């Protein structure tokens, strides 16, 4: 059932606010969500897991993101806060997200004894990621060597309502003693810093401390964030800290702006938290995906949505989402095709304003893509495989692998499908939103320039067909291949859609089209040539078998039975060596299957099935992007059991990470893929014509799936299976 709704998302969830209203002043000014479907809990403390926990429990609002590090630190703590678009560049190395000062640092001593997890006994310790409210909670009961028991509770958030505010509140209660508490809440690192790329980042901090008589000691009376207090048995003491964060990217005077901002905020900490919580509530009402009957899948999907929402900022269209969002240093904050192909569909359907910012990032980096194409002797736009703030390609040229081999990295030059991926995201955005202004002002230009790239990149050969040689497809195990099916197929699509779009824009918006075609120097016959090239493209499709050959010569490679390596904990290229894997049919991630998925409506059903059945057993899933797409396609093909197995594998990439995959940040692309597997796979949501349709294949354990999505400006509600909500209401007493 796909029901159009008359207005925006409805309001809800008043119970938390009611509980918060009854809180005592000395308590934390909010309460955690109790529903296990909304929280992630880390009980106890395992030092070696700390980097993973910091990533999974990261908080963010798309403007800034902060890892869930312990405030007092540990031997393995790596606290970091990042601001989207703020990169540090050092000569000779790729730009990377610049960490700010650690605003969360807080060390406390009781009668001279530091309160730390590695000292004394931890009677209780848990961290709770409250995904519904976007708050990181901590609950800790600690007994020191002298037997003193201290109870500590804390919350931390990066405001979704006011992107520049970061909030931390801590309460301390001596359970069985009176003594002297010393708090050091100074930030570690400079509060004003200028990055290597010239951006000024300024943080201003305000703190206040409440004593046993509920008197506040304001920031001005704290000596550089340090405070000494006499603790009384059973009394609760509270520290509030608010940080305002501004950069020269958003204001000319970041230091002054931050100072004024924080002064206003410190007087109403509860109000700042309530507004933040309300913003998350509104976000969830638009973006939540409810699964009845499978709490594990429910939590995994909420985790995916939480981190995607934490990473996006609709107010800044000059930044995009890096492979690890703002949750860690891995991948340096670089943006890949992950954003356009794996994350964007979630935003397009549930948060179109954010999706617009992401596609506009590609528009703002078009100049760099043009420069890259020109440098390599092509026309149009060849987007960066890895990009940061400027859009220049910042792919590292080599890596020393842990077996000591120096491996040349060819993706920056050869993974050219990125240009078609960007175009695909642009087209999907416009199709789903009907944002004509975007299409006319930005989207068409991207489609034209990427089509131009393909028209100049493909070469007509003796067989009369256009070929692209020397590329890497999504399957990165095979490098410098000719006629990669995905690259050629997407290039062909890009050329056709660009031609179609120019015709459409010329017809519907002749004025802007004239200006654009003049500015870009488009000859009247150019779109026609794109169509010709598209028509004569070599695709590697075999009519007899219905198979696409992944690249020239693929079918002649060694067939290795992956079933012989089950169970397996390492990627196949590590086990077999790069050289051996390149001589084999084992692929890293869906390539032809990816093409089948993206161009689903163009593929006859038997072709979809034949290619999935051929390539799926040959996929080694060496990429975190792989399992979700297999889940999605298997679900669409009706193999629900296989789809469910892949879905669970995808869901575990971060959440079941006991092996360190997430230490450098969560896998934002895989999380976007997981959402797609549920919505575009199991729910079978499709947009073939003028209105959304669905062909569901839900896993047997999923009693129902329900969600909202926006299609061409109107909110719709999808509830599966049909009538599930009604049946549930009838069954409930």
């Amino acid at each position, binding site marked *: 059932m796909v029901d159009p709704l008359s207005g925006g998302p409805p309001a809800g969830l008043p119970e938390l606010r009611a509980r918060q209203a009854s809180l005592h002043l000395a308590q934390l000014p909010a309460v955690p969500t109790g529903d296990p479907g909304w929280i992630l809990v880390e009980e106890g403390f*395992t*030092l*070696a*897991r700390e*980097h993973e926990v910091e990533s999974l429990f990261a908080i963010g609002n798309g403007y800034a993101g902060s890892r869930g590090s312990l405030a007092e630190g*540990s*031997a*393995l703590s790596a606290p970091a806060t990042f601001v989207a678009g703020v990169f540090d560049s050092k000569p000779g190395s790729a730009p990377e997200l610049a960490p700010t000062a650690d605003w969360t640092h807080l060390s406390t001593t009781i009668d001279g004894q530091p309160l730390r997890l590695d000292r004394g006994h931890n009677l209780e310790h848990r961290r709770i990621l409250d995904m519904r409210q976007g708050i990181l909670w901590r609950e800790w009961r600690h007994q020191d060597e002298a037997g003193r028991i201290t109870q500590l509770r804390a919350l931390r958030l990066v405001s979704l309502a006011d992107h520049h505010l970061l909030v931390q509140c801590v309460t301390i209660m001596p359970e069985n003693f009176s003594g002297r508490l010393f708090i050091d809440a100074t930030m570690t690192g400079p509060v004003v810093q200028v990055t290597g790329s010239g951006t000024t980042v300024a943080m201003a901090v305000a703190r206040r401390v409440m004593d046993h008589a509920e008197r506040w000691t304001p920031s001005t009376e704290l000596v550089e964030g340090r405070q000494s207090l006499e603790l009384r048995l059973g009394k609760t003491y509270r520290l509030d800290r608010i940080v305002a964060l501004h950069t020269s990217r958003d204001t000319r005077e970041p230091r002054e702006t931050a100072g004024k901002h924080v002064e206003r905020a410190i007087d109403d900490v509860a109000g700042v938290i309530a507004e933040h919580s309300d913003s998350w509530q509104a976000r969830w009402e638009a973006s939540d995906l409810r699964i009845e009957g499978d709490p594990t899948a429910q939590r995994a999907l909420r985790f995916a949505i939480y981190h995607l929402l934490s990473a996006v900022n609709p107010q800044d269209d000059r930044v995009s989402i890096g*492979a690890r969002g703002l949750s860690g*240093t*891995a*991948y*340096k904050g*670089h943006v*890949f095709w992950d954003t356009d192909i794996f994350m964007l569909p979630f935003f397009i359907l549930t948060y179109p304003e954010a999706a617009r910012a992401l596609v506009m990032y590609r528009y703002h980096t078009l100049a760099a893509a043009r420069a890259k194409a020109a440098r390599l002797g092509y026309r149009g736009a060849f987007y960066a495989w*890895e990009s940061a703030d400027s859009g220049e390609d910042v*792919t*590292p040229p*080599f*890596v*020393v*692998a*842990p*077996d*000591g081999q120096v*491996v040349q*990295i060819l*993706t920056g030059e050869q993974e050219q499908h990125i240009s078609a991926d960007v175009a695909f995201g642009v087209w999907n955005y416009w199709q789903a939103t009907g944002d004509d202004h975007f299409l006319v002002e930005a989207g068409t230009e991207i489609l034209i320039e990427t089509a131009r790239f393909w028209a100049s990149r493909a070469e007509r050969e003796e067989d009369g067909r256009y070929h692209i040689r020397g590329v890497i497809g999504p399957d990165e195990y095979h490098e410098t291949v000719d006629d990669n099916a995905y690259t050629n197929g997407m290039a062909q699509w890009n050329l056709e859609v660009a031609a179609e779009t120019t015709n459409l824009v010329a017809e519907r918006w002749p004025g802007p089209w004239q200006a654009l075609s003049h500015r870009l120097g488009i000859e009247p016959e150019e779109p026609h040539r794109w169509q010709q090239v598209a028509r004569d493209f070599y695709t590697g499709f075999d009519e007899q078998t219905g198979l696409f050959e992944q690249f020239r010569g693929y079918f002649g490679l060694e067939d290795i039975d992956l079933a012989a*390596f089950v*169970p*397996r*904990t*390492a*990627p196949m*290229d*590590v*086990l077999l060596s790069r050289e051996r894997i390149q001589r084999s049919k084992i692929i890293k991630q869906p390539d032809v299957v990816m093409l089948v998925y993206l161009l689903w409506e163009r593929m006859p059903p038997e072709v979809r099935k034949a290619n999935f059945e051929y390539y799926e057993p040959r996929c080694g*899933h*060496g*990429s*975190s*992007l*792989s399992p979700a797409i297999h889940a999605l396609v298997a679900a669409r093909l009706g193999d629900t059991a296989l789809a469910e197995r892949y879905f669970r594998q995808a869901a575990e*990439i971060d959440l079941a990470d*006991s*092996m*360190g*995959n997430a*230490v*450098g940040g969560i*896998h934002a*692309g895989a999380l976007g893929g997981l959402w797609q597997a549920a919505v575009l796979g199991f729910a079978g949501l499709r947009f073939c014509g003028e209105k959304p349709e669905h062909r569901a294949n839900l896993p047997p354990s999923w009693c129902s799936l329900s969600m909202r999505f926006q299609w061409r400006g109107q909110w719709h509600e999808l509830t599966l299976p049909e009538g599930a909500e009604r049946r549930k209401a009838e069954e409930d007493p």
Partner: protein
Amino acid sequence: MSEPIILVPLDGSKQALAALPVAKVLGEIERAALHILHVGEHELAGDELRSRLGREASVLDGFTIDARVGTPAVEILQVAGEIKPRMIVMCKHSGAERGKMLGRTAMKVLHDAPCPVVLVPPERGATPWHLHHVLVPHDGTPSTSAALQPAAELAERGRAELLVVHVTDIRAAPAEPGSLTTPRYVDQPQHEWPAWTSEFINRLACVCPLGHLHVRIVLAHGDTAAEVLRLCKRQSTDLIVLAWRKIWEAPHAATLKDILREAHCPIMVVRT
């Protein structure tokens, strides 16, 4: 604090003297005194031991020899309990036990020693020894990291390089919380491998302080012992350090046994 001691049991055979060059260098690095121990069936004066060793006896010049009567392993462990040595350095087996992976005495000492045991292949003879490269196989668990602390300290004091070899067990990851093994997904190797290497070192360092030690991580797969022996040869390893969970019976300790059987360099065994 009293001077550290390295216990060096000698059985009076010339083969056993192979432990001495290794013990001497380790003694210099650790600033430890060597405590030479001979256990025999009858009481034996230092001069009598010298006379049994003939020309090789000169290597004992300057050392005090502690001679005891009884079962060798029992006495060695008794002395170890008394003097609390930093480590025991001994030959893998006596001449009579040639071809065996471990002699009876070495086996018993290895099993019950209160400190790390360095086992020296007798075929080293009197060849001078140095410590430049220490090789450590590591399964990625925190308990192995903790067990390796004496080896890390030794390598740092000796200014040797620590080569940590992580051999992937492709079938099952370690169940111990906080374990780090080969990443299941390597999305982009140019980012993934430096991050993984850094994390491996960080996790090692947080339970086994590395100080200024030069550490290299090498990832391998296949049979752990075969990989260690291969790398040992390729990297000119001077000392292999093995963490052992103190279970000898098969199928346990397979790696330890293979390396004890095949390695040509001394092996330090530390217990987890």
